[in-house]
């Protein structure tokens, strides 16, 4: 499924190759440009931003905007930067990802190796839950969180993210375990292994890749969430993206673009880091998320 271009003559072939490479590079620039501009802006002083060119490298590199964004920028009424919100997000993401992954693994195991009448319906109902527009749950969820006494807390957001994360984690593990040889499960059963024993000793040891895919998918989604954070925890305990939006779109005081960009970079770095380290697994999650099994 390649080499097609090479049918034509050598000269026109070379022309086409140059054109293809040029187009590909131009688009690479298109995708990189906003990130580049964001980065260089975050290292400039405000004066240089006002006078200079957005695309130019800083004449004087400064880390001041990064320090300010992290430790002293004003968000709402407090001027302590985004670091508290960064930790808020960590405290929310870690338990939510762990719980949703564990539940998803067990669900996938049951739905493939311990099937019961109606398992397809159970899975279908859980799967549709992944795709609802979350606006539909905002009103009742805010009431439930209020009644449980966890409105505006990290625990509340963990509950929300686990609830709407298990659909996808179940999907990932179910599709993965579907291809797992049943003979192994069966022979372990004959040897007297129980439900958890089989899961622990037979399936889990070979689940490495799908665990990575699921963890990355959940981490990226929950870290990047804005809607739930803004709806249920917009105060002091707010997650990162809510704080970033408040910082950037606050209308008081001098607009410090360099601090905004540094804060945006800080908010983007964890998911970018995961992408750079484990991009392959990230893409697999994206593909599985579009339900191509």
């Amino acid at each position, binding site marked *: 499924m390649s080499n097609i271009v090479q049918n034509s003559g050598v000269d026109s072939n070379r022309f086409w190759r140059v054109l293809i490479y040029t187009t590909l590079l131009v688009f690479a620039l298109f*995708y990189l440009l906003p990130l580049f501009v964001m980065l260089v802006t975050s290292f400039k002083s405000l004066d240089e931003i006002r006078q200079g060119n957005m695309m130019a490298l800083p004449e004087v590199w400064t880390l001041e905007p990064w320090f300010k964004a992290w430790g002293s920028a004003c968000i709402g009424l407090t001027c302590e930067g985004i670091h508290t919100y960064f930790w808020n997000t960590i405290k929310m993401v870690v338990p939510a990802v762990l719980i949703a992954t564990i539940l998803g693994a067990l669900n996938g195991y*049951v739905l493939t*190796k311990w099937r019961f009448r109606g398992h397809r319906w159970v899975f279908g109902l859980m799967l549709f839950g992944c795709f609802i527009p979350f606006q539909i749950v905002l009103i009742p969820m805010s009431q439930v969180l209020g009644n449980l006494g966890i409105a505006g807390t990290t625990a509340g957001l963990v509950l929300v993210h686990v609830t709407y994360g298990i659909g996808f984690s179940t999907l990932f593990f179910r599709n993965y375990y579907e291809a797992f040889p049943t003979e192994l499960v069966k022979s372990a059963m004959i040897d007297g292994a129980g439900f958890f024993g089989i899961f622990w000793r037979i399936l889990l040891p070979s689940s490495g890749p799908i665990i990575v895919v699921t963890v990355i998918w959940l981490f990226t989604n929950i870290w990047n969430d804005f809607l739930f954070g803004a709806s249920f925890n917009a105060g002091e305990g707010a997650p990162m993206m809510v704080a970033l939006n408040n910082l950037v779109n606050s209308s008081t005081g001098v607009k410090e673009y360099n601090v905004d960009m540094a804060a945006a970079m800080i908010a983007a770095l964890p998911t970018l880091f995961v992408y750079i380290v484990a991009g392959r697994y990230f893409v697999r999650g*994206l593909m599985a998320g579009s339900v191509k099994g």
Partner: protein
Amino acid sequence: MSAFHLNYSEHSGPNKMNDDTSGFLGWCRRSLPKIVLAPSFVVTICFVYGFIIYTGYISTTASKMLPNSKFIGLTNYEKLWRTLNWQVALDNLAIFGILYITICGVLGLTLAILLDQKIRGEGFLRPIYLYPMALSFIVTGTAWKWFLNPGLGLEKTMHEWGWESFSFDWLVNSEMAIYTVVMAGVWQTSGFVMAMFLAGLRGVDNEQVKAAQLDGASSFQTYKRVIIPQLGPVFLSAFVVLSHMAIKAYDLVVALTGGGPGNATEVPATFMYSYTFTRNQMGVGAASAMIMLMTIAAIIVPYLYAETRGKRHE
């Protein structure tokens, strides 16, 4: 996959292996898989389907700032349809949805085809096209808001580079602001569409391609007649994923334009949020959420049905 159905269909399983099948303990042992699955299932039933029903119920009541049990039928839906902001939101969703899906699709397919020409450095280029997908829409919105800043952004850069008459004020121009949302959305998602198409291209039947080439088909004809027609399922997936993202679009609009200038970039998701939580029109907000749900369900349900059915017969 069919092996599962033969060996474990319905009621086989542990009860045949263990002698202790009587009494409470036996019941627990037999039901253990269901007990493990139950919490997730119950949570889904309550927090997805229960909540959908509750929001549907709220949409038929006179709820304003707080929920109110006074039943008013479909009045909120009538009100919704008479609200100018909702009309603007629907128009914007149409503009955004059509352009976003079309441009992402065309760009994604083009890049995938170009990358499939035995490109040196493919492993280097692909991650560059795809990395925006790892970012939050809030970060993307922040970056593009700065990039397109009328005073200090692209416009100033062009002036500095000698293009004095260059003017680009779309971000603050109520006629054009929705197109900046399209630009940022395409930037974020088109690499993902490229990856979907590339995976599809790599799965195309090589024999047919070779046959077409032996018949003297040009590369353009080969793509048009042999390869692209085989990508049907990828087109469908891409369409479903993109339309789903378009209808849910909220964060990007909030971060990039805040729905403005004025209400120029209002979309259903921002409409629902502001009517429910800041304008004290919870009933109308719930009605708009129901419309969003029904639109997405109309696209997703047939798709999921076909996908899961298809797997059964594999």
